[in-house]
């Protein structure tokens, strides 16, 4: 029977403690007061809780067994950058060596042809030819703009890689300089990796140097204390 009462009144019982301390919203407080007016069980609960609170407020204060004043200033507790100082210094040294190795590898393998500026392809050669022709036949070109535009259209295909022989021929005829076209190569991929490696290791090294600096400053502060 008591168990059933507990289940039924659980919601109201939760409110009894804040009710004692005046920590309830007005509407909820009024609802509880109406319930208390008709429920002897909750009235009994409330009375027992009030008794407990009154007992707790009578608990005597105990005098401290001694004074807890500090006789000397305790040392500043080391924070983690200082606690792991040697590990961080080793990591900084390793990162610096890695960065040096990557930079040297980048310099030794050299810049690939792939990173050279884009070369004028056959379209440019043909354009040059077309321009030479137009110089000779300017009057015809102006009179026949459609033909000229066709030449230009023909002269502007998608740039294609020139075979080496063609490039040499172009040089012999004194036409516009033709340099080797862009060719994707394995060395270009390697350099991209090396470049990203330099950036990543450089960033890591910057972080580690900052941590070492903080560690040095904290250690200096501790020595001053």
């Amino acid at each position, binding site marked *: 029977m008591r168990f059933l009462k507990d289940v039924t009144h659980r919601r109201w*019982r*939760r409110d*009894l*403690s*804040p009710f004692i*301390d005046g*920590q309830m919203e007005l509407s909820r407080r009024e609802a509880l007061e109406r319930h208390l007016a008709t429920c002897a069980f909750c009235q009994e609960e409330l009375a*027992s*809780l009030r*008794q*407990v*609170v009154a*007992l*707790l*407020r*009578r*608990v*005597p*204060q*105990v*005098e*401290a*067994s*001694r*004074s*807890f*004043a*500090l006789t*000397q*200033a*305790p040392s*500043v*507790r080391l924070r983690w950058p200082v606690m792991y100082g040697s590990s961080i210094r080793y990591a900084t040294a390793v990162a610096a060596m890695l960065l040096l190795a990557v930079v040297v590898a980048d310099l030794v393998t050299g810049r690939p042809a792939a990173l050279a500026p884009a070369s004028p392809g056959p379209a440019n050669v043909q354009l040059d030819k077309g321009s030479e022709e137009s110089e000779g036949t300017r009057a015809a070109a102006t009179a026949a703009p459609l033909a000229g535009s066709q030449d230009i259209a023909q002269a502007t295909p998608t740039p294609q890689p020139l075979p080496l022989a063609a490039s040499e021929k172009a040089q012999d005829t004194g036409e516009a300089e033709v340099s080797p076209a862009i060719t994707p190569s394995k060395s270009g991929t390697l350099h991209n990796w090396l470049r990203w490696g330099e950036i990543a290791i450089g960033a890591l090294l910057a972080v580690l140097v900052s941590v070492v600096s903080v560690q040095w400053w904290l250690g200096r502060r501790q020595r001053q*204390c």
Partner: protein
Amino acid sequence: MENEAQLISESQRGDLDAFNRLVEWYQGQVYNLALRMLGDKDLAADAAQETFISAYRSIGGFRGGNFRSWLLRIAANACRDLMRAARARRSIPLDTLELTPDSIPHSREESPDSYVIRRELGHAIQAGLQTLSHDHRLALVLIDVQGFTYQEAAQVMRCNVGTVRSRLSRARAQLRDALRQHPELLPDQFRL
């Protein structure tokens, strides 16, 4: 406390004397909190000392607000750490609880009987508190024993007021049930 802000400021600049004045003012509250949380006066003394050492080390990080709440939060954490360390040991039974007569102030106006009753009440409450979890016990001690408001207790416990309300409600009910199970612990006029 008068000039508390000034003492705090001087302590932050490394003035140990200023900090010790704060210690003298708050050590009673810190010690009593630790005693009610731990139930043992030696552990309470250790917790109180550790509290003030930690407070001195970290006072540079105090950015204003309620200094008492800040300090008692450190004390509550110190008590939790000591409780964890002592968890392997069994809880101290009531008959070994060394609340000696000298540790409870005895005024001349108080009769010996009244003094004894008060001391027995303290023993009984402490026995009941030992049955509660750390969080429930802390809520009860802060609000009903130390007189904190719900908001101050929430600052110490680093939770919201609703959580404080809930923990306090449960703690009071549990303590009442524990005291009802051992009515002989309470003086006659206080039995539930």
